[in-house]
């Protein structure tokens, strides 16, 4: 328990010293992806293997400085999820990919005892071996701020966070700055909300600070629900204290003494890491009453969402915390005036809060130097889809789409052609080849008819059907609509019906006009952001890929051959020898014929599974 600032400072110094005694470190990525790949087993195996060697190892960082040792720790997400489970060796900075528990003994023996690099576990591309993490092209163009600690420190230890300078921005704000100074600094930095809207954080804080109310709330929005987005999850899992620190600074700045983190219940690891972090912070007296004898009280509670996407919307989120139905309400009044429990509320997203300690620590000027004037700083993106390097990245705002996809993402998987990228999840739009030079920042994307959203990038190659993509996202929005306003509830349902018709070859050409008419009505009249942007994927795919829609409708053909219902499998009679192999394999008995005569497929029965195509020795079965 730190009684005052002095106490806190001394403790931090000892932790820093302790950490310095760990002359070698093994960091096992313990993000959700790598954990699923067996990271915990690897971690345990490493400790076990180490026991054999009589090399002292520290699993937890203690206050008492110990002898030189090897730190073995579970870190946050390294980002290179495609190659997981990942293990990083320090001080060399080696990164081992696709590690298995069987490799652990070798890692300890070779890399820790003998200090030699294991080539077998290294990342290789086009014949080049990349021993260190920093050299790997995936990491080279990244600038990691919010994700700075992810992959570098133990995600479950406040001591490590303190050892590397954690909570110092908070104490700076608490003791060395006035409320006005803090708000001013954030305002000057021009930090914009990372949740998608891009509203200036400083302005929001100023408004809450100016509210005349004895009770104010700081709420962190961790209800990241876009398909293919996991930036906030990784931050909460990998650097939970950073999020808490950002919220605490907001508490100091706005005069609030209570915070809530709203996390999806589908993020159990994030919830448990945050719980641990809050528990530790309370234990140390960094949360609670009269923090470090400053007179400032602040407490943070976790509220688990119940699986509604719409609860990521501000007023639905606060309603959900209050125990009400998660449904957006009309604005005004805005959340800054009447937010949680009807009190003035700062509502920011996880990544936004994670940026705050940096700005307070290093200053607004330093922060503003990163990225373009109007959208400074960095942005985390989750790369998914048909891309070589799926994973979590962070780049300065204004990095072009091309750089992200080709330099960092390594281009398209399997060498296919790039077709489009869906940015901003179900509320975003798709960007095409022509827009590869587009800088990724709030304003440029808005102009291009897309939005940064929370930062999900779903990359699609030539084999992706854009109509199906639009249908997929519409299906998502339709399922997640809260049902309150008519345009969103009924309109998205009808749009989905039409899209369902088109992908199954039942569409008519008038459907396109109807889709656009519905889209126009929904965008203009829906109550909340979810509704207003619900039609964006459809509108942008019609705009960019109208021909694909038309092919589905007029030619009953899916140009990328993905729409199941438009597939037609037939047997070329001149090539068929009548061996009957296909008819024996067909799971639904759709193929029949006389031996040694061409067989026939009954299109009504055929489920287009393609099993026959693969089985035919004469390549007589074809897809049209």
């Amino acid at each position, binding site marked *: 328990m730190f009684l005052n600032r002095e106490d806190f400072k001394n403790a931090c110094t000892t932790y820093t010293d302790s950490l310095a005694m760990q002359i070698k470190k093994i960091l096992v990525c313990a993000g959700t992806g790598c954990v699923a790949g067996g990271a915990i087993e690897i971690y345990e195996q490493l400790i076990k293997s180490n026991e054999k060697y009589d090399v002292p190892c520290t699993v937890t960082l203690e206050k008492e400085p110990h002898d030189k040792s090897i730190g073995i720790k579970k870190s946050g997400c390294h980002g290179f999820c495609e190659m997981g489970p990942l293990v990083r060796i320090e001080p060399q900075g080696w990164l081992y990919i696709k590690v298995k528990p069987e490799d652990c003994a070798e890692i300890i023996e070779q890399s820790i005892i003998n200090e030699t690099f294991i080539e077998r576990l290294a990342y290789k591309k086009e014949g080049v071996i990349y021993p260190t993490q920093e050299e790997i092209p995936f990491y080279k163009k990244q600038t990691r701020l919010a994700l700075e600690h992810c992959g570098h420190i133990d995600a479950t230890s406040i001591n490590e966070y303190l050892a590397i300078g954690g909570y110092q921005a908070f104490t700076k704000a608490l003791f060395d700055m006035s409320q006005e100074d803090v708000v001013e600094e954030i305002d000057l930095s021009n930090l914009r909300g990372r949740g998608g809207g891009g509203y200036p954080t400083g302005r929001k804080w100023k408004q809450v600070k100016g509210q005349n109310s004895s009770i104010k709330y700081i709420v962190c929005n961790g209800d990241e629900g876009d398909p293919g987005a996991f930036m906030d999850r990784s931050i909460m899992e990998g650097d939970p204290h950073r999020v808490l620190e950002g919220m605490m600074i907001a508490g100091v700045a706005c005069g609030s003494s209570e915070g809530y983190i709203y996390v999806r219940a589908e993020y159990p690891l994030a919830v448990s890491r945050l719980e641990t972090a809050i528990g530790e912070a309370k234990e140390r007296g960094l949360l609670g009453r009269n923090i470090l004898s400053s007179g400032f009280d602040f407490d943070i509670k976790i509220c688990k969402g119940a699986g509604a996407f719409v609860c990521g919307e501000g007023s639905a989120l606060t309603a959900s915390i209050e125990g009400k139905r998660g449904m957006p309400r009309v604005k*005004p009044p805005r959340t800054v005036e009447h937010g949680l429990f009807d009190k003035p509320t700062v509502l920011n997203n996880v990544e936004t809060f994670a940026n705050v300690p940096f700005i307070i620590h290093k200053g607004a000027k330093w922060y503003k130097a990163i990225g373009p004037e109007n959208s400074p700083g960095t942005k985390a993106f989750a790369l998914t889809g048909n891309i070589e390097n799926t994973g979590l990245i962070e780049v300065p705002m204004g990095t072009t789409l091309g750089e992200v996809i080709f330099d960092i993402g390594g281009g398209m998987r399997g060498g296919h052609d790039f077709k489009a990228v869906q940015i901003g999840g179900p509320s975003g739009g798709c960007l095409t080849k022509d827009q590869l030079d587009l800088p990724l920042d709030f304003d440029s994307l808005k102009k291009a008819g897309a939005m940064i959203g929370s930062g999900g990038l779903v990359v699609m190659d030539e084999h992706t059907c854009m109509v199906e993509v639009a249908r997929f996202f519409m299906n998502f929005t339709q399922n997640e*609509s809260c049902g309150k306003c008519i345009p969103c509830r009924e309109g998205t349902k009808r749009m989905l019906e039409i899209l369902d018709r088109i992908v199954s070859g039942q569409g008519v050409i008038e459907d396109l006009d109807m889709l656009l008419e519905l889209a126009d*009505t929904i965008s203009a009249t829906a109550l909340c952001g979810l509704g207003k942007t619900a039609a964006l994927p459809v509108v942008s795919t019609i705009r960019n890929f109208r021909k694909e829609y038309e092919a589905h409708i007029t030619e009953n053909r899916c140009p990328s051959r993905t729409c199941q219902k438009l597939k037609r499998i037939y047997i070329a009679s001149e090539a068929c020898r009548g061996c009957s192999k296909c008819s024996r394999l067909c799971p639904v008995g759709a193929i029949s014929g006389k031996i040694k005569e061409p067989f026939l497929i009954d299109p009504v029965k055929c489920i287009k599974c393609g099993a026959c195509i693969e089985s035919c020795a004469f390549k007589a079965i074809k897809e049209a």
Partner: protein
Amino acid sequence: MNTEFMVIDNMPVEINGERNILDVIRKAGIDLPTFCYYSELSVYGACRMCVVEDQWGTIQAACSTPPKAGMAIRTNTPRLRKYRKMILELLLSNHCRDCTTCEKNGKCKLQELAQRFGIKQVRFHNTSEDSELDTSSLCIVRDKSKCILCGDCVRMCNEVQNVGAIDFAFRGSKMCVSTAFDEPLANTKCVGCGQCSVVCPTGAIVVRNDTAKLWKELSDKNTKVIVQIAPAVRVGIGKELGFSEGQNVMGRVVAALRRIGFDEVFDTSTGADFTVLEEAEEFSKRLLTEDNLPLFTSCCPAWVRYAELNYPQLLKNISTCRSPMQMLASILKEHHREDEKRVVVVAVMPCTAKKQEAARDEFKEDGVPYVDYVITTQELIHLIKEANLIFTEIEPEAVDMPFGTTSGSGVIFGVTGGVTEAVIRRLSDDKSSFALRAIAFTGVRGMQGVKEARIDCNGREVKIAIVSGLKNADDLIRSIQKGEKQYDFVEVMSCPGGCIGGAGQPVTNRDGKYNRGAGLYNADRMSNIKRSEENPIIKELYDGMLKGKVHKLLHVNYLKPDRS
């Protein structure tokens, strides 16, 4: 202060403290369409029909946009028309479109707006699943297939009535208004006030219609059908039948009922006169002993039900007097005890909860209810129309004897504060006409949801509260329980404004309720008997039929274990 203006369709309109631009627009003579906006409920903003366009082409919902000086908006642009039509088409596509057989036919907001905006075709198929009617409640019938999810009923039930029997369930296009666990309404905390049906723009919640069964009784030669008419009916029925809102058409109602085939017609106000005497006596006794104060009135069945469900400890404070309908019905049944024919008592009420009250075990003798049928004002209109009567051409008639005399005190029972005023008249020693006028100005009159009055009764100051709307009642009870407020007499009416605004009445607005109240006060003024005790039939019955039977016929014990 300078007057502030905003510009609506190129026309300057003064802003005068309106909450939102919708109110300003309507003030300017533009009936902007809405489904989900009621000034007495919170702003919900779901129907999006009230969208307007500002000078920059931004679309905003008028109901949730505060007015600002200099703001310029347009309410009728091609874009807005297109959006409104699309919204209507979307609503209609999932809506049961059997308009001709719908209870709400001709009064449905969706029907009206579809007509107003010329929706001639619906381009989407109705894909909604078949849903069953919820006919479990004796008061209202719910039909999910006609629900447009405007949420008006939900907010009414929660915000104004504090009942919370219904709320939204599920998400997106699966969303519906539901009771908890989708139980039948009868198994919930619903009190039957029916205010949800008042705000329902479509036929999704309607008052239960019992007229078919009644027609059968009317045509049965071996049955004598006796009817009583509640005070509020006479001022609520006229508007739909060719008179002005609030006009007292009692004589015509009496005549119409006879033409329809009712054998005897009476006025529930007579029952109310008995209630006044009994309740005043009960109150005087309690004032002497200071037991079970405050005394809560018992006329309103929805309130009694609400207390049973939420404040059972308060039941001992509720007056043991039967409601006027039940008092008169008990007397009528007693009077006809020896009748050769089967006697059926019908009550025409402004109220849906009375249907439930009539079915309570407390109000049955050998399993036969005192009131066999309760029909609402709306159902009476159906009867009159179905009987092909031209209401405006009917000559007014008087009610039957021997229970045909009423006092003005009995008539004002239909408006909030009326019961209290009648009881005060009874309790007051000063029987002058000046005293009558003084009582009217003690604070008992007016359409406010909460009123307070203080009167002097035998040298003791009596503190009175009058509430209408169950949320107001609940707030009052809580402040009494907390010790913040102290009263001796509390009048509770569940429906805002009292029975004149009952859910059985044709739907009206605030002005309409005011006019109906004025109609009742006017009837009181024109009545030559002002006080209940001056009603000659009262004395006659106390000396005759009621001798030794007052308790059996005029009182009830709600403290018994609930069996309803």
